[in-house]
Structure formats: structure tokens, C-alpha cells
């Protein structure tokens, strides 16, 4: 395992400790993701789901363990993480749009600054993506004029504009009013259907069941169980998984 390039992402024995080892957020977690797979990470709050996801692009620096992205160990010294992050889009619970920039500027800033596209190219890409999520008319608005659902769709577009190979979603619908959850999930479903590799931390069990190829159940910093949705939801093998599923369904 490890350098195996069958996997776009391979996590090997990841450990994350806080306060000098007093708190263990991730306890020897391993996870392989194939290209095109949609993985949903579920579990009670405080189980380490978000820490796991945020470790994948090193927003959290792991205490030990390895993270391979396209066969390259991101945790090894001398790796230019900025280069790899360009290929790993991330969407946050609280959108984190840049409030001082227009929607269009939010989307084009990174591709232009990092010289992935010219100003004109990136604007064209942005407009196409905005049209796809039905927000073309918002291009010149500032984020504070948008609803939560619109903000999150823009945030997805901002990540897609970099042409990522993987999309990481950190509870993308948890901060939304219920009536706006659908519009964001629809965009994500479309992405999944197009073959995007996605890792989604979510409380939306319906979405996980319908869209995910595999479900990963985490509890207390450990990956407890992993399997296809049908097995995890209908026939969990672990008692803790069963308890959790019973509570949320």
C-alpha cells in the first residue's frame, strides 16, 4: 500500500493529536479513494470527520501517518503543498467567500494569481460554471447580497474553477436553511454524475445513501466501518454504527 497509484488519495495510519497528546482527534485512520469515487464520511459530532477531511489538504497538519495524493506523500518534507492544493478543491460549512470581492472576483482570483489561466480565460470559465449552477446573473454582486444556498453554490464554483481532481466537502449543507439544502445537493449530485472524485463529510443521510459509492463511519477518531450504502444503512456490522444509524434515520 502507500505509493499505490490505483488510488487518487491514500491515507495511511493518520494520527492527529492536540495539546501535546492529551486529545486524540484521529487515531490511526487509513482510507483509500479511487478516482471517480464518491465517499461520504458520517458519524456523530466530535468523531473526527472534519479533522480527517481537513488533513487531506493539510489544513490540519497530522501528528503522524502519511497522506498520498496521486502517489505523492504530502506529509514528506520538500513537498510544495500549494501546488497540490490547486488540484484539491474544498468547500466549507460556512462558505468562506471573500466578502470584499464580487462573485466573479471570488472565482477568478486564484486561477489568475496562480497563473493557471489568463484573466480573460478565467472569466470565461467562471461564467460557464456560474451558468451551470444557475447564478450567472449574480456575477457582479457581492457575497453579502446572496442567500446561503447561493453562497455555497458560488463556493463550489470557486473550487471548480481551479480544475481540481478531487473535491472535499466539509458539511456543505449544515449551515443552510432547510429550504436551501436541495439546491446545493443538486449541484453536488451533478458533479458526482460527471465522475468527479468527491469526499463529503455530511449529516445528509439521504444524500449519502443516494449518491455515495461508499460510506465511511467514524466515531471517537477512528474509522469504525466502511462499506456500500446499502450495507451500512441496512445491515451495519458494528454495534456503534447500528446505534448511530438508528438515531439519525
Amino acid at each position, binding site marked *: 500500500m502507500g505509493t499505490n497509484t490505483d488510488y487518487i488519495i491514500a491515507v495511511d495510519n493518520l494520527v492527529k493529536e492536540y495539546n501535546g497528546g492529551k486529545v486524540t482527534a484521529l487515531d490511526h485512520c487509513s482510507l483509500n479513494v479511487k478516482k471517480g469515487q464518491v465517499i461520504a464520511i458520517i458519524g456523530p459530532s466530535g468523531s473526527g470527520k472534519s479533522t480527517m477531511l481537513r488533513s487531506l489538504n493539510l489544513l490540519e497538519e497530522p501528528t503522524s501517518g502519511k497522506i498520498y495524493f496521486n502517489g505523492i506523500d504530502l506529509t514528506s518534507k520538500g513537498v510544495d503543498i*500549494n*501546488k497540490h492544493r490547486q488540484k484539491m478543491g474544498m468547500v466549507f460549512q460556512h462558505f468562506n467567500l*471573500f466578502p470584499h470581492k464580487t462573485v466573479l472576483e471570488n472565482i477568478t482570483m486564484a486561477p489568475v494569481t496562480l497563473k493557471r489561466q489568463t484573466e480573460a480565460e478565467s472569466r470565461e470559465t467562471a461564467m460557464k460554471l456560474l451558468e451551470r449552477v444557475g447564478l450567472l446573473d449574480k456575477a457582479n454582486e457581492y457575497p453579502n447580497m446572496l442567500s446561503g444556498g447561493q453562497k455555497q453554490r458560488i463556493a463550489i464554483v470557486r473550487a471548480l474553477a481551479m480544475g481540481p481532481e478531487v473535491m472535499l466537502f466539509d458539511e456543505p449543507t449544515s449551515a443552510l436553511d432547510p429550504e436551501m439544502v436541495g439546491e446545493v445537493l443538486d449541484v453536488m449530485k451533478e458533479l458526482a454524475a460527471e465522475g468527479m472524485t468527491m469526499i463529503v463529510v455530511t449529516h445528509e443521510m439521504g444524500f449519502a445513501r443516494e449518491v455515495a459509492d461508499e460510506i465511511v463511519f467514524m466515531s471517537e477518531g477512528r474509522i469504525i466501518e466502511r462499506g456500500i450504502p446499502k450495507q451500512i444503512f441496512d445491515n451495519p456490522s458494528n454495534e456503534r454504527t447500528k446505534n448511530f444509524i438508528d438515531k439519525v434515520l
Partner: protein
Amino acid sequence: MFWDWWQSLFADMSSTNFLNFSFLPKYGYAVIQGVEYTLILSVISVLMAVLPALLLATMRLSKNKAVRCISGAYIAAFRSTPILVQLMIIYYGVFSIITVPKFMIFGFIDSTRFIPGVTALALNSSAYVAEIFRAGILAVDSGQMEAARSLGLSHSQSMRLVILPQAVKNVLPALANEVITMVKESSVCMVLGMAEIMFTAQTIGGRTMISVGPYMLSEFIYFVVTYPTSKVIERIERRMRRGDKH
């Protein structure tokens, strides 16, 4: 005619009377120049402090402990000692090594005193402004840095494009307050013979033998400049905070 009437007001007044302003006809112009001197001195000092302060603030937030300590030591040293002492050390120490060419700024400001004075005030102010900047940067939601970094931007690109533009807005009222503080603090420059408000008052007192009057006038001028300005800033601040909620 007006000044005749003005003089008659103070005809029987003793030279120690708080409200003896009989010096005004003769020295009014000097007072106005003193006010101009003070305003120029304080505004330029704070402006000169902005860039070093930005550097100090970024150093203070650095991951490198040594860099953090250097900036911390500078800020601590300048904030924990009297500005008068700093002024003396810089004037008699640093500027005994560096010679400033003599010329007049705006026709009435002597460069050989002004430049050392501004340097001292700016160095002092940069310590305070650095703390203002640090607070302004920390007030920007941490999700902003994460979002920028997740797109592949480097730390400095994220700072420049995402964090600092938002921090500036947080910082402007505090920076204006620093100018107000500097209007008051710059009065220490009288000891170097810089012809700002206080030095002018002292000179007038010496020439006319009117002891308190000139200082009462200075008191009045400082108040008239600083109090309304600080009230205006308070209002702008309140309005900005309202604008933030969305």
C-alpha cells in the same frame, strides 16, 4: 479697532490670571503656526509609522519564534518607556551620528529639529500601530485564510489578497485615534525647540510675562482639535459595525 477693544478687556488683569489672553494681537499668528506645526507633525508621524507597523505586525504573527520575539521586544520597549526619553535618546544619540541638512519645510519648519522629532514619534507610534494592525488581522475570520490556502495560494498571497484588504477596514478608526493621541503626545517635542503648540505657548509666556494664559489657550486648542474628531470617529465606527451585519 477690534484689537483695541480686545486689549481693553484685559487692561486690569494680572499676569497670572487664567484668562489673560492679551498676548493674542501680537502673537496670534505664532499660535496659528504652532497649531499647523502640531498637526503636520502628528499626521506625518503616524503615516510614517504605517509601513514599519505593518512589518512589525506580520512579524508578531509569524510562525518563527525568533522573528516573533524581535517584534515583541520592539513593541514592548517603545510602549513601556516614556516618549520623552525616547525622543531625547534619538535626538542626542542617533542624530548626533546622522547629520540632517538644514532647510525649511512649508517655509516655517526647521528640518534639523523636525526630522529627528518625526523619526522619534514615528518609531514610537509604529509600536502602537503594530498592535492595532495585529488586532485588525486577527479580527478577520480564520475561514478566510483557510479558503485562500485551500485554493493553493501561498501564505503571503493570501495575506495580500484576502486578509489585509479586510483588515484595513477594521483598522481605520483605530488609526485615526492614533493620530489624535499623537496630537497630544507630540507636545513633548517642545523640549527640542520644535515650534509646535506648547513651545509657542512657552515662548509667548517668556516674552510677555503672562504665565498661565498661553497654556490655557493651548489646552483649549488641543481640546477643540481632539474631542470633536474623536466623536466623529466614534460615529463612523458605529456605522461601520452596523454595516457589517448582513
